[in-house]
């Protein structure tokens, strides 16, 4: 493959009046939702092969502070967006025939900025996890009529930065023969038991795993992952696309990205740090970059790592670093994480 590629990326002009904090593509990758310090959420159609000719977008107004994140619900629930803001609110938006986008819900139980929202895997129903600077995590469970119940509990002292749901089906459960292996292979994941579980990232340098206990009808802290030495900025649980183990990627203020793996339900989480020094030292990088990398110790990125995002198949991790580069990582056959490409702004 060619060593350097120029991506003919036609930018979408968002017409936000301030910095964009988050951009999320919907289930089909056909629509883009963005949110900004200008307090607005915008939705654009991404037309195939011609991103430029966007329809101008819809503006969703309702927040009274910068909007940090947006999240699309699974389309089987309709066209639904959740957004969270510095104003401490989580808003639920729905696109309805003839009416466009309207606010259909407002979650105001948090007492400080809500930093992250994440919809549960669709198999679990319409559920939304929210992480707030008030140190609490809330989980909304929506009913058919659009009303919801909220569970709210303490997550991380000082504040919670991000939440990410585990896949609904435990990795390996499709591959490991089950006692009642009568089920036809075509039955798929819907037939296997699903779990309600997510990970949260906090200002206490910790990553916590939360699980729902059906017997007590409550969320329980199942595990704590210790490894970062500064705020954990983002957490992303890998989709379980036939992978045998569970993967969680975390990004931190301490300039590291840790990949946490768990071989089986009973095994402990094992952490590995991505090592950018092995990949970024290539000559194409600018002079400033090269020196920055040279100064960074092994296993450290040149700057704060803000965001980690898995591809659909869960085999590729995009890491956005404060140094202005997005690097893409893959686990090779030997289980070593390699940087396969990087993107410069």
């Amino acid at each position, binding site marked *: 493959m060619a060593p350097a590629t120029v991506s003919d990326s036609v*930018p979408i002009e968002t017409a936000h009046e301030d910095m964009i904090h988050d*951009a999320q593509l919907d289930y089909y990758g056909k629509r883009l939702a963005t949110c900004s310090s200008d307090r607005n959420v915008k939705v654009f159609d991404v037309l195939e092969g011609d991103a430029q000719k966007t329809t101008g977008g819809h503006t969703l107004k309702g927040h009274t502070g910068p909007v940090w994140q947006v999240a699309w619900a699974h389309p089987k629930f309709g066209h639904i967006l959740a957004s969270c803001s510095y104003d401490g609110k989580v808003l639920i938006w729905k696109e309805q025939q003839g009416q466009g986008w309207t606010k259909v819900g407002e979650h105001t139980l948090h007492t400080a900025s809500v930093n992250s929202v994440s919809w549960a895997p669709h198999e679990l129903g319409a559920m939304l996890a929210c992480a707030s600077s008030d140190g609490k995590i809330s989980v909304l469970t929506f009913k058919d009529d659009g009303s919801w119940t909220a569970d709210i509990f303490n997550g991380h002292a000082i504040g919670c930065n991000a939440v990410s749901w585990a896949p609904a089906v435990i990795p390996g459960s499709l591959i490991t023969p089950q006692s009642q292996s009568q089920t036809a292979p075509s039955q798929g994941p819907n037939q296997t038991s699903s779990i309600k579980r997510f990970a949260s990232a906090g200002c206490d340098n910790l990553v916590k795993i939360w699980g729902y206990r059906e017997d007590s009808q409550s969320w329980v802290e199942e595990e704590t992952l210790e490894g970062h030495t500064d705020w954990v900025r983002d957490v992303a649980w890998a989709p379980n696309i036939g992978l045998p183990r569970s993967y969680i990627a975390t990004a931190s203020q301490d300039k590291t990205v840790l990949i946490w793996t768990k071989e089986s339900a009973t095994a402990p989480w094992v952490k590995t740090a991505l090592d950018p020094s092995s990949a970024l030292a*290539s000559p194409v990088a600018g002079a400033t970059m090269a020196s920055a990398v040279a100064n960074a110790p092994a296993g450290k990125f040149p700057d704060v790592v803000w965001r980690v995002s898995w591809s*659909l198949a869960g085999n590729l991790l995009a890491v956005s670093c404060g140094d*202005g580069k997005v690097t893409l990582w893959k686990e090779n056959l030997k289980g070593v994480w390699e940087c396969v490409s990087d*993107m410069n702004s």
Partner: protein
Amino acid sequence: MGAQHINLVPPQVESGHFDELLQAGQTISATTSPFDNSLAVFLSPTNISGSNSSSNQEEPVYFASYDVIPSSERRLFIADTQVIFSMFHDMLEAAKTREPSWLQSSEALELMRKFSVDYVNFIKECWIHASQPMARADGPLQFSADHYRSLYSCFSLFVVLYLPEPGYEDAPVGEELMEWLNIHFIEPSTEEGDHLSSLDKPWEDVEFWPYLKRVTLRGLTKASLFFFNTLLQHPSEDLQDLAKSIIPVVENQPRLQNFSAERDFAFASRRWKDKVKAIRIEMDRVPEDCRFDEFENWWDSLSDIVGILEGRSSVIQRVCEDLGADWKEVCAAWGIFVDSRLRRQDLVDVAAEVLENMPPDPTNLEDMIHSALFLGKPEQALRHASQLDTWLSAHFADVMEPLGLLESDEPAESELSKRDEYVLSYAEYLHSDPTQWKITIAYMYSCGDIGRERADEILVRVPLKLHPSETSGTPEEAIAQAVKEISEVCFNHQREAVRRTVCRIAAQSCVRQKEYGLAVSYCISAEDWVSLGRVIDSILEEYIKNGAADFAKQASKIAPSLQDIQFDSATEAIFVHRLIFAVRYSQIHRYKLEKDYVSAASDIVTLFREEIAPKSWWPVLLCDSVELLQYGPALLFSTSDAAELLKKLEEISIRASQGSGDDYLSVLVRTIKGGGEKDALERLKVVRLALARYFARCTVGSNKLAIPSS
């Protein structure tokens, strides 16, 4: 593997000025797209304290693909080779129904060879197509003709070495190798030959002897005989005599294809070698001082040629080095001259020896692939192939696995097999072009559980053409078409769960567009009874919001679904009950519109008697009956029917007075805009009055049309 660099165009920051951006508190951020292999990239602030540093610059979001998206000739190449891939897999699939040993049978090998030759031929076509200097309607070539040429040389070498014609596995390989070399690496050039043949005394040209050596080495008999014949005019009589002797020897070199039995070929080869020896003896008799002409030492050059014919490996290697030929030529010549009975399994040792002295070019992936194939290291060939083109490594691996060329120890439960690894990585590259989803998943579904899961994720995201702009037909036609297409694929790959998910999403979209008929049929198709219930609620909402006429129209679309519904369990029965209610209830309104009051009245009673109507709809039904109770020309209800209505009315009144009004009155309340429970109860009084009058009419007016009690 080195990292690949991708630069955004137009750039967000001038090269080298990135620090300014960082100082401004901004950095780059990205999110992955589920649509294809792309990232949405945007600048975001590093300082998240909620500052409102309103900037007036544009805030664009970029889409950047980390694969080079297939275009023009490449798309065609991908689509057409997938056809061969699918046929190959149909064959492997069919093999599963046979004995395990069948894959090693000559019948199976014949088929695998056939498919591989198909690949070779197709690559060749593509190479020829790409070589033609012509205007291209679908844009410039994405890959050069030379790229396809290298795929062509690699794949055909693979066929020569690993997929011989069944029955010829143990036959000498030299002739085939030389043929391969002559097809793919043409030497010497035709121009050289034309130039030399135009000369009266070609031996005076510096290129004469190198040319003659090369054509000899390559077994290009026609050309070598032509120039040996010119030597008959050479001023040296010694050389003339030698040429006379050499011509019949070259002309009569035994060729494998002319023999029906290898024994005869071997015998002929030995006798031929003896004749070559005779020439050597004749050469040695030429006195030292007669070995030159005015231009050079012809004797040495001729000696090299005789050395080649004798099969002296050191001479062949030296001549190749002098001519600028590489290790491939030495190996092929080896199989013709050094050991004319060289077999495929022995070639590995020969290649190893030759490559020891003449290593492959590490900067040339094609050469690295060739050498790995010669050395019998298919996995190494795969590694190089994956760098040249993931197409090549995927299709190599796909054929190598059934041939048993790849490590066969079962991979750990988790790990992908080598073959799957390469095929999946090709499939992922294909995913960069979402319009090729059918091809992408065809490769993925051939890769075990992991491949199936990945393909599922793509399949459930095949756009259902929900946006009117994407299609010319009506939205519902577009959805129906898309769902049908996906369902077919699901059926072919036996992905029932995927089909159901897609149906669920389609149902949701249809409800949004008030396409209730399709929505209901998708729910039933997905056996998603909860969603079915929701759709029916939406239809009944139509009644509440828009009145009877609209409702009757919408509900009529779902009536056909009742016929193909099958249900077993009790839960399903509940939802199906609701469906029946919606259909039957809309039927009542249709009867009313058609002025068929007898049927309308009888259906209202049936809905009560058969307990089809949910409690919350009882008051609505009762209100609907008022008009029928007051119908002048005839008595539409029997006395017992009217009593049934009264019984329900009583139940509602009693329960409402006990505080359970909500269970019964909610729907009626909603039809009275701005009304409450009190207004609803008020309405029911009208029903009571109508019923009272009706009973009075029943006792008085027995001369009217009598309805037999049911």
